[in-house]
């Protein structure tokens, strides 16, 4: 564990020094994510101009949910996204060899080596927005509710990485430019909407096999519906199941990796 922490500190140091070399890009990325947040808040703002509830949630509740999602997304963009974007190129060009021979977990190394320092600022912005959304909420939350909510958001960020990774790994077989990442970004829209709007088979799928609704919407329900052990157990079990699946899938993918570039 100590060895991995030390390694991660090296990743951070390299990433920050690299980010400082591209200052304009640093600035552009902050603006881009801020625009992304604004677009989604305006989207719901316009919708709530025509209705008072969506899936039983009012605007204040949706605002907390969305800000929770922004925090998860910013965490993912900061810690994992760059790495997952680069993985298909390593596989297709045969560069993966350099990472497989290192004496650390290849999954850990390839998922964490590039820390997006420019997105780190957005992480602070997203966290500030979440605090603002919670403070302006007309009701009150207990400290325990907030702690569980934040814990589940962290679990949501972990699930986000697990799902994204599952959509990148097929590149070992398809050898396409991005794996199925475009598909992941299409499906990600489900995580950006409150879970009560989804019903039937769609809801079951989005809370089990493709658990997008567990990323930010389920955590938000802890605030609005009170502490709910079902949500905690459900989130824990799905995370565990998906972790086991990802490890199996990753090992299977590595076994089929031929090292030959294409």
């Amino acid at each position, binding site marked *: 564990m100590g060895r991995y922490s030390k390694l991660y500190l090296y990743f951070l140091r390299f990433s920050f020094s690299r980010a400082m070399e*591209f200052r304009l890009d640093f600035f552009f990325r902050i603006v881009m994510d801020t625009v992304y947040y604004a677009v989604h808040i305006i989207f719901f703002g316009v919708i709530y101009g025509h209705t*008072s509830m969506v*899936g039983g949630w009012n605007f204040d509740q949706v605002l907390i949910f969305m800000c929770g999602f922004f925090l998860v997304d910013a965490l993912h963009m900061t810690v994992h996204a760059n790495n997952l974007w680069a993985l298909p190129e390593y596989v297709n060009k045969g560069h993966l060899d350099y990472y497989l021979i290192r004496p650390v977990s290849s999954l850990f190394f390839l998922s964490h080596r590039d820390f997006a320092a420019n997105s780190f600022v957005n992480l602070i912005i997203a966290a500030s927005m979440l605090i603002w959304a919670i403070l302006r909420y007309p009701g009150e939350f207990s400290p325990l509710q907030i702690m569980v909510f934040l814990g589940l958001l962290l679990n949501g960020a972990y699930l986000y990485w697990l799902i994204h990774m599952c959509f990148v790994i097929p590149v070992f077989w398809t050898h396409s430019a991005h794996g199925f990442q475009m598909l992941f970004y299409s499906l990600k829209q*489900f995580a950006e909407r409150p879970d009560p709007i989804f019903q039937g088979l769609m809801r079951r799928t989005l809370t089990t096999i493709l658990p997008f609704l567990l990323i930010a919407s389920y955590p938000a329900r802890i605030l609005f519906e009170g502490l709910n052990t079902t949500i905690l157990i459900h989130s824990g079990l799905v995370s565990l199941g998906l972790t086991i699946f990802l490890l199996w899938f990753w090992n299977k993918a590595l076994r089929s990796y031929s090292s030959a570039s294409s």
Partner: protein
Amino acid sequence: MTLLFFKIVNLELRKQMSYRVDFWVNTVVSFFAAMGVMYFLWDAIFTASETEIIGGYSQKEMILYYVLVILIAKLVRGSNQMTGIAGDIYTGELTKYHLFPTPYLTFKYAEHLGSLLPALIQLVLFGALSPFIFAFPDSLNITPLSIITCANVVLLANLLFFTLTLPLQLVAFWADNVWSLVVMNHFISGLLGGAMLPLELFPDWARTVLNFTPFAYLYHFPVRILTGHIQAEQIWIGVGVMICWIIILSAGSWFIWRKGNKLYTGVGI
């Protein structure tokens, strides 16, 4: 020159279809994911608001709007040409194009057009399937004339989107990575262009402002023409605004291109 232009279109078209598994999986899932999200969201909104009409749309009209806007937006945006020009500048690939017998930006627009075939396939496929999957309004105002008018406006909207993205990509002469700018344009045009919401849902003052921007004519305008909701006079005014923006943005791009080319060293990374 024209022959060369169409050869580039053809080449790009074949390139786009080279990863077939990816293409079909992405095509089918991304369409149904986008429609699934919109369907459930609007179903919840109509149920909660206890009204049959929101912003002038019934629930069936809203679904029809989203089917059309998702498909038409793909035609307007093309596929994956978002940072091609910026990439050429950044890597020094641009030097190669200076030797080609066709102007670089014409070459890139031909590539952009060539990337439309997948979107066209999706339009035909899902356009034909959707009436059997989703509940559409009982009476549709889609006529041969509205289809032809819409097709022409989509072509113009495609050029408008290209000219809107172009100056952002040309910033690559000064910045190392302009991907964020292009994605930002994608977010803004999605919201203000009607891809996320019909523009009728915006407050009146916002709609008045939007009518002067290029965004309102990218997705919402062609869809409303297709469904027969825009009168001939308004179509001509809209087309006029689009042409004005294309000229303004092209002139701006040309200016940036000239300035940037003076700085360009061709070294790349």
